[in-house]
């Protein structure tokens, strides 16, 4: 029975994932030392060429010592991964505690920092009333307070439950470590490619665990993974982006070859059958099946070739996501070295985003933003590298008139996309911290439906990951109050052209969140742009050609936010 100790709110408020992260990193170095010692002994054994009883006795002893060193490698590996898991858990707990504190502040209820008890604080409201009429008028606000208090109690309970799980997992890992003797540890680790650790990342690992595991691998191990398991590495958040790019390029080439072959085989079958007389329903069904394979292959090829074309024509482009699962293919292209970037801007497009017909345009938008941001840095007399990303990494609603267009009316796709975006952003943080010791300034820029996706992601992302948020042409912010965002800077930005954008504030407050253009707490960027499609257009001046037009003041302001140099007035 592990959960014999029940954690208190006061206890978990003292948790600090930084200690676990540092300790996991120290343990990684220690593991490397033990592994080196084991390899040194193996090398010494190979160099020992004597024969006879003496030599045999010595060899037996060396074998035992190698085994014990291997056991130490296993211990270090186990402790390192347990600490990485605890670090990620403590990070999540700290983020949830902060969410609770923000919610209390936003709603006026009181959260006791020691006990976690929630006080409705209705006395404060009652004190404002001096007449019976005023008391009666307080009925609504008091009910709202009570609802907020109930909601906060659930949040506190949820946070304590998560903390208990994180704590008990750590205790279980340490207990398991104590239950294994050194020989068991050696056997456990002896069958893997990287001693003491699994060959491949486990499916349920967090980004911190993945980044910790990846940081123990040699370049040779990493190359082996890229060669033999590129589909596992290419989209795995927490893995270095330079290696993700190598893996995804390999997958891209392989998929293009596979689908070309499928298309050719289907076409040949249908062509061959075309010259034959009708041979019954069974053959007709077979023709139908081949036709389906052929059209599916053609569709996939259109997406894959768009990615390939964009990469070929864009300098310093890196394929950091490639995923054919889900409703439509997903991809993300970064313009520069993500692992060492000082400023990163993730551009999240919206409705109608399809890799096959939008990737080139959006990479061009990202390129415009990147060029502008670099100029802003030069003009400000500051140094630093800038990387922008065209992130087509989620299933966006279809464009007007297409099959799944109705999904634009709901936030289901935005919520699913927010999960993916959140993981991608946390992967950047974990990857930079583990692999280059960097902590780049990260801005998420969401357009249209992508702004709701970005808002929802920023409200649930771990603290310290997203520094700034820019929403433009937004149907809804994804939140009811800016305090729900987990932003390092604490200030989100919005841009909305004054007229002609029919998607702005289109969503209902309840589902899409409030209109960022009208919400208190948003900093308003310029709404001045020469771009957009004037005259008759179903979406009016909503497209990125309005907001990310290379000569617009809006783009200039976005570039200033991305580089952390924005000087305009804040609320």
């Amino acid at each position, binding site marked *: 029975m592990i959960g014999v100790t029940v954690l208190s709110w006061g206890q978990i408020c003292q948790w600090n994932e930084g200690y676990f992260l540092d300790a996991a990193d120290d343990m990684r170095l220690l593991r490397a030392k033990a592994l080196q010692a084991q390899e040194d002994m193996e090398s010494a054994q190979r160099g020992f060429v004597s024969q006879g009883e003496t030599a045999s006795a010595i060899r037996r002893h060396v074998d035992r010592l190698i085994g014990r060193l291997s056991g130490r490698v296993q*211990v270090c590996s186990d402790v390192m991964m347990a600490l990485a898991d605890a670090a990620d858990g403590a990070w999540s707990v700290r983020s949830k505690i902060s969410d609770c504190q923000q919610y209390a502040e936003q709603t006026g209820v009181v959260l006791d920092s020691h006990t976690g008890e929630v006080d409705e604080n209705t006395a404060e409201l009652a004190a404002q009333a001096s007449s019976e009429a005023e008391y009666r008028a307080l009925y609504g606000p008091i009910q709202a307070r009570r609802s907020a208090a109930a909601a906060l109690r659930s949040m506190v309970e949820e946070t304590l439950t998560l903390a208990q799980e994180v704590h008990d997992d750590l205790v279980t890992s340490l207990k398991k470590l104590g239950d294994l003797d050194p020989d068991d540890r050696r056997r456990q680790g002896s069958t893997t490619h990287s001693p003491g650790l699994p060959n491949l990342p486990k499916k349920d690992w967090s980004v911190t665990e993945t980044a910790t595991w990846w940081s123990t691998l040699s370049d040779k191990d990493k190359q082996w993974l890229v060669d033999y398991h590129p589909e596992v590495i290419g989209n795995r958040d927490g893995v270095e982006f330079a290696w993700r790019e190598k893996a995804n390029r390999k997958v891209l080439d392989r998929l293009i070859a596979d689908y070309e072959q499928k298309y050719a085989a289907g076409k040949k079958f249908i062509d061959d059958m075309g010259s034959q007389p009708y041979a019954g329903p069974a053959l007709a069904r077979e023709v139908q099946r081949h036709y389906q394979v052929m059209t599916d292959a053609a569709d996939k090829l259109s997406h894959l070739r768009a990615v390939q074309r964009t990469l070929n024509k864009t300098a310093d482009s890196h394929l950091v996501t490639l995923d054919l699962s889900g409703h439509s293919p997903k991809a993300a292209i970064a313009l520069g070295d993500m692992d060492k970037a000082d400023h990163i801007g993730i551009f999240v497009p919206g409705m109608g985003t399809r890799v096959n017909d939008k990737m080139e345009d959006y990479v061009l938008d990202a390129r415009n933003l990147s060029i502008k941001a670099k100029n802003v840095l030069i003009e400000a007399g500051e140094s630093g590298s800038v990387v922008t990303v065209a992130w087509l990494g989620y299933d966006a609603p279809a464009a007007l008139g297409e099959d799944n267009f109705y999904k634009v009316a709901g936030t289901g796709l935005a919520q699913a996309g927010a999960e993916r975006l959140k993981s991608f952003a946390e992967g950047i943080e974990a990857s930079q911290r583990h692999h280059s010791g960097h902590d780049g300034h990260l801005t998420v820029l969401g357009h249209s439906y992508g702004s709701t996706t970005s808002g929802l992601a920023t409200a649930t992302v771990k603290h310290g990951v997203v520094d700034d948020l820019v929403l433009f042409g937004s149907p809804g912010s994804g939140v009811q109050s800016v305090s729900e965002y987990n932003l390092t800077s604490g200030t989100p930005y919005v841009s909305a052209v004054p007229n002609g954008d029919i998607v702005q504030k289109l969503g209902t407050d309840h589902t899409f969140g409030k209109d960022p253009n009208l919400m208190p707490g948003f900093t308003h960027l310029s709404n001045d742009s020469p771009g957009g499609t004037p005259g008759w257009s179903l979406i009016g001046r909503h497209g990125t050609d309005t907001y990310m037009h290379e000569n617009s003041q809006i783009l200039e302001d976005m570039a200033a936010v991305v580089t952390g140099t924005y000087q305009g007035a804040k609320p």
Partner: protein
Amino acid sequence: MGEEVLVVDGDLPALSRSVRNTRENYDARQPGDPLAKAGRGMPHTLGGSLCQRVAGVLDAEWDELATSLEDFADAIDEAQDSMVTTDSDVASAFSSIVERVKPAQDVPAVRHSIPRMW
């Protein structure tokens, strides 16, 4: 008369040097420090205090293996010094030295050392 000594000249000193180098590299740091540090990330909890306790046990294991490496290098040196006329004599000398120092397989497992408090 025992069989001929088959130990190649220079083999034992080379092995001894390698073992001592290994020991020095291996023993430069211990696992206790990181674990103790981790314990501060979750203060006043069972998990936090368990980090501290396991740190002590791992350090002891770490030390014990470092000592075994040192003793092994010493044993090789002594065997080299006491090299006599036959291989079986050298083997016997080596074995007696290894027996005299702590046997390699006699390692206290961590499970005996952590108080069962969960």
